[in-house]
């Protein structure tokens, strides 16, 4: 069965995924909007950077984050200058890493939703006197709701399942950085297969339920033309 430290890891994981998802939506939505609407020649470049975590092995991202967020790294120097200290081995560090790692899972569905929106509803809003920001909140965002929902679920689920990055910069500290995936790995490595099965089973069940809910409630992009 699950031990106290398993429960602590589960709680920490949910907290991490929740905070990460909120931050991702706040950052990812404007970014997706820009990517969907811009004609800038930087679009391809920025889009590629956002998508990088999809193809890079998590341990590689984790290693570079460890170096960048360390005392000699540029992020580390910045956070020290800003009086935040160093990020590795802290909850905040995990949040930063998770945000970077899960970014494409949030940006891409929202970007797709904004792209399928087309110009028409936005133009209609403009001719009715709505400012661009007003249009964004009253027309674009409500119409992109299926995409935002998908992004929320994927961002959350992906953060829950994240392992390699956390392993590299977490330091496995109970209640701070020891999330479910690391706890599970420890069980497996320590040959505690029974405990591992419980956690792994829970993780599989959770992921399945989340994805099933997503695909049931949101079957494809709704047709609106």
């Amino acid at each position, binding site marked *: 069965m699950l031990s106290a430290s398993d429960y602590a890891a589960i709680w920490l994981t949910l907290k991490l995924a929740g905070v990460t998802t909120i931050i991702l939506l706040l950052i990812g939505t404007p970014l997706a909007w820009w990517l969907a609407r811009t004609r800038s020649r930087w679009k391809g470049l920025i889009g590629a950077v956002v998508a990088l975590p999809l193809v890079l092995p998590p341990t590689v991202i984790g290693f570079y984050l*460890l170096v960048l*967020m*360390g*005392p000699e790294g540029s992020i580390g120097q910045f956070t020290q200058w800003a009086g935040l200290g*160093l990020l590795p081995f802290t909850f905040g560090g995990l949040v930063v890493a998770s945000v970077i790692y899960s970014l494409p899972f949030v940006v891409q569905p929202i970007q797709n939703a904004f792209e399928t929106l087309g110009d028409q509803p936005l133009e209609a809003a403009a001719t009715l006197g709505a400012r661009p920001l007003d249009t964004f909140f009253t027309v674009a965002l409500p119409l992109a709701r299926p995409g935002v929902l998908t992004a929320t679920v994927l961002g959350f689920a992906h953060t829950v399942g994240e392992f390699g990055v956390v392993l*590299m910069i977490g330091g*496995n*500290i109970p209640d701070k950085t020891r999330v479910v995936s690391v706890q599970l790995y420890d069980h497996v*490595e320590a040959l505690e297969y029974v405990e591992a099965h419980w956690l792994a089973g829970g993780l599989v069940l959770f992921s399945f339920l989340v994805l099933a809910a997503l695909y049931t409630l949101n079957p494809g992009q709704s047709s609106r033309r």
Partner: protein
Amino acid sequence: MAYFRYFRIALSSILAWITIAQADEVHVAVGANFASPMKLIAAEFEKETGHKIVLSYGTVGKFYAQIKNGAPFEVLVSSDQETPDKLVADGLALETTRRTYAIGRLVLWSAKPGFVDPNGEVLKKGEFRHLAIANPKLAVYGAAAQETLKRMGLWETLAPRIVQAENITQAHQFVASGNAELGFVALSQVIDRDGRINTGSHWLVPADLYPRLRQDVIVLARGRHNPAAAALVDYLVGSKARAIIKSYGYGLE
């Protein structure tokens, strides 16, 4: 149809190549901390005997799970004694072939020069944010670090500042990148080929502060009939290998 013929030819040549290659090959699983010396030793061994060695590196716990599930390893160069014990109990390794080839040495190391004093007093002063160790549950060097801190009476006080790495390699990364100011690592990780530690600062932990880190090599059930497997074990405890092992900072029996 032409494609199908090509496919058959390709398949049969691959199979032929695999069978031929297997004849004088030995598959070896090596604990990650011993990767560098093992490469040198394997090269020497191949030169002298004509056998071919295929090396895989990883944590010993992972190898155990893999071997139990049919991994094709013939020799395990372990970083502990417990794993060979368990494999013997499971009937997956040959007790008679078992040898201790090296004894691990623990060192408290910092990437910053002058940070660690020669007597380890820095641990008592506690002027640091993070102390990196390998996971005591998973890695023998982690268990040794935990034991050292306990014997020094510091385990309880320092616990909040300890960051655990999954293995000794990662513990070294934590310290080398400066994210942890200091940490317990394997001497073999920081020693240079001249036999000295030339980067940062360190304290060689006295051998009486932790149990001996005996590292055993053993022939696995799959290597029973491979003469190259037995030859490798012999070679590993021979004088040429011992010199290499010693130069990496390991103790010898």
